[in-house]
Each structure stands twice: as structure tokens, then as C-alpha cells.
């Protein structure tokens, strides 16, 4: 049951869900939730490979930095969302048209 393949399948599923959420959801915060799913999928891949393939601890360092980067990304992204809501009174993704020429 606990083989490398099952972990890779779970991580692939997480990645696909996150990618679909980023592409298809129309809410800015839902897009950020999708990004969190993608980051978790990659971190899970790192830990799974370091457990089953080369069994040293280098793969445990990467998830820590991924978690740090995800925290920073969430802080900045949510600040942008709140600022966007103050300007446009909406967080629908089709309202973000200010950078289009």
C-alpha cells in the first residue's frame, strides 16, 4: 500500500486539482488556494522521493523552504487581494483589467 507510486499518484492528483483551480476559478482567493495545493504537491514529491529513493535528509530541507516561500507568497498575495478589493469593490478575476492596454 505505501509505495512510491501511491504517493506520486496523490501528489499528481493534488497538482491537477490546484492547476484546475488556478485556471478555472473566478475568485482571486480561490486562485491562491490552488497555488497552495500545487506547492503542497511538490513538497510531497520531495519527501516521497527522499524516503524511497536515496534515504538521506536533503529532501526534508526543501519542504521547509517551500513552506516558508508559501507563507511569504500568501502574505503578499492576500495583501494584493485586499488592496484590489479596496479599489474595485470586487474580487472577481475578470475585474482585474487595469494592466491591460
Amino acid at each position, binding site marked *: 500500500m*505505501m509505495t512510491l507510486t501511491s504517493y506520486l499518484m496523490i501528489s499528481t492528483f*493534488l497538482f491537477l486539482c490546484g492547476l484546475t483551480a488556478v485556471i478555472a476559478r473566478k475568485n482571486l482567493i480561490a486562485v*491562491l488556494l490552488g497555488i*497552495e495545493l500545487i506547492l503542497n504537491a511538490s513538497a510531497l514529491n520531495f*519527501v516521497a522521493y527522499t*524516503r524511497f529513493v536515496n534515504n538521506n535528509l536533503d529532501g*526534508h*530541507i526543501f519542504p521547509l523552504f517551500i513552506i516558508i516561500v508559501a*507563507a511569504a507568497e500568501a502574505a503578499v498575495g492576500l495583501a494584493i487581494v485586499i488592496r484590489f478589493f479596496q479599489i474595485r469593490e470586487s474580487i472577481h478575476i475578470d475585474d482585474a483589467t487595469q494592466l491591460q492596454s
Partner: protein
Amino acid sequence: MDNVIFIISALLTVTGALCVLLTKNVMHACVYLLTCLLGVAGLYVTLGADFVAATQLAVYVGGVVILMVFAVMLTGGPTSQSSNKFGIVKVPMMGNAKTYIIGIISAVIFALMAYKVLSRIIISIQAGELPAFTETVEKIGFMLVTDHVLAFEISSVLLLGALVGAAIIARPRRGV
């Protein structure tokens, strides 16, 4: 025991990810993301990465998801004040058997994880010796300040920059 934790964590992860994708309500999506991240932490435990699992619980579940919930509440969120047939205004997000089922499953997986981590320590206490530090924590701490010290320092600068940048971006400007 490991198989039980693996199956429950995998189910939590997969259903959480699907529900994040499929629910309309963003607040519910945040709660489903929380269960999904709990499941990923359980998968880390089955892989023997206890420090990563603890960090995942502390930073993601305790920090990022709470930040998301605050952002949902600050940007309006669900505005429909639905009332039931007795005319009483329902408290939003307090109903719904699905929520309680997810909560019970999360409590069960948390108890299993705590049992798995604590059982060895409890056995060693009963044998009369002090509980040893787990291997990965000591080695990860050693590697963070030897091999990966550059990434460690850069991440601290990155966190400082993100904090200041977020504060500047979200600051209410005068006259707007």
C-alpha cells in the same frame, strides 16, 4: 497502524483537494484546504518526516489558512443572510452534517498521529530511559546551518521583505 494512517490521510487529502476545487463558497473552500493540508501532514508522518509534518501543521494550518480566512472575511465573503422557515437568521457556516463529519475525521487522524509519535516515547519512559531526540530534527538542524546556510539566510531576508511589502501594499492610503 501505518497503513491506517496512510489511508485516512490519503482520503483526507484527495477529498479536501476535490472540495477546494468544486465548492462555490470560498470560506468552505478554505476549510476544505485545511483538511487537505492536515492530510498532507499525515502523509509526511507516514514517510518518517516528523519535523516537516510539525512545520506543516504550525505554519500552514495555523498560519496560512487563518490568513486566507481573514482575507475572505475582509473582502465581503458570503453576503447572503439566509433565514430558515421560523424566521430565525441562521448563523453562517455553523450547520450542515458534512462539516461535522469532516471535523470528526480530522480529530481521528490527529489522534492517530499523536499516538504514533507518542507511543515510542511512552514505551521508552516505561522502560526507564529518557526519550531520545528524534533523528530527523537533530540532523535537519545540523544541515540547516552547514550545507544549506545560504538558503536559510536568504529565506529570512525573503520573509522580512514579504512582511514589509504586504504591510505597504495593504495600507489604507489617505485621500482615496
